[in-house]
């Protein structure tokens, strides 16, 4: 089986680098599935989870935005933050979720609201990846 080298890189250092059979992720324009031999491509990602398939098992990684660069034998994901389920601090994510919900409830300005909304999305995404409920 052909494989792709997937590397996930963040400003705080590389998170993961390994060979996988398939990468599926959610780009701004919709779901993308990438198999080896894909045409070179760049796409922005949403706050979502990336699924990596390797010999029957699959892994998830929570990313907060960023983008994806595809080459025939290589996929690079550049995100401002990316975490494996084992690295997610569930208490912190829960607290962030509550904080964001509170801030959205007493809405002050549009900018704050938008920022809180994004923070909420990130928190929910982390919790989902951690609990593996999709």
């Amino acid at each position, binding site marked *: 089986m052909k494989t792709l080298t997937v*590397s996930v*890189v*963040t*400003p*705080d*250092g*590389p998170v993961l680098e390994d060979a996988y059979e398939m990468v599926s992720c959610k*780009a*701004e*324009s919709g779901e*993308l599935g990438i198999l080896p031999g894909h*045409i*070179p*491509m*760049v*796409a*922005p990602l949403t706050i979502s989870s990336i699924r990596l398939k390797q010999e029957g098992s699959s892994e998830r990684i929570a990313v907060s*935005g*960023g*983008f994806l*660069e595809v*080459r025939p034998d290589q996929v*690079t994901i*550049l995100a*401002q*933050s990316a975490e494996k389920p084992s690295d997610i601090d569930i208490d912190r994510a829960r607290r962030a979720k509550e904080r964001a919900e509170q801030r959205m409830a007493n809405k002050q300005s549009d900018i704050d609201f938008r920022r809180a909304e994004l923070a909420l999305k990130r928190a929910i995404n982390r919790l989902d990846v951690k609990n593996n409920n999709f």
Partner: protein
Amino acid sequence: MASLRDIKGRITSTKKTKQITKAMEMVSASKLNKAEQNARSFVPYSEKIQEVVASIAAGGGDASHPMLEARDVKRTGYLVITSDRGLAGAYNSSVLRKVYQQIRQHHNSAEEYTLITMGRIGRDFFRKRNMPVDKDITGIADQPDFADIKDIASETVQLFTDGEIDQLYIYYNHYVSAITQEVTEKKVLPLTNLNPEGKAGTSSYEYEPDEEEILEVLLPQYAESLIYGALLDGKASEHAARMTAMKSATDNADELIGDLSLSYNRARQAAITQEITEIVGGAAALE
């Protein structure tokens, strides 16, 4: 000549100071190690993002974005990276002097520029001189995460996008080695020199959905990463500067202790000699 007790007092206090500076030196050395590591782990990210940005800028002729275009400069933003605490030798003062000179040279009124400062020393320096500090962040950790500075970085980039500033310079100490740090000026926005090595055409990409949308996401992220990179570099310099400063303070204390011990021994010897002379003199008077 100072009395024996005075000298002894000074020796003990210098010894205590030396202990402190020695400890600070070692703390900074270990922090420097960590900061260097952080700066290194950031390299793959910055290289990759630069590569993609450059190939888009080189590949697509019609792709345009406000952040790529130089416009008439009405207002300039200066982002200055300093530390929160002093005791780091010339680390802060050299950066601040450079920024101050630049501003004096290029601007006549406070309307023409704005400052964004990272670190307390920088903020206080400019506030004291009544210069406009638009945004500031203090209390950055010694090993900063990207999350710690994401807000101020994106707000700074936002200033440019909103047209509040027309160009952005960043000033920080570039880490050359543990004993050398260089004050560096870097133009971050607009992003005009994206493809310096001529690596064009390494790969032509398909864009999903299109180039403009990609640039929309990519360029702010790229600019933020430049700011973060400068901060990491600055942090490594800070620890290096502090380490060197503390090392020379420790050396100076050693030297001072040596001098003081010498005069202490001299004074002690003089006191003994005097006592003997007095006894001998007294005995002679009795005969």
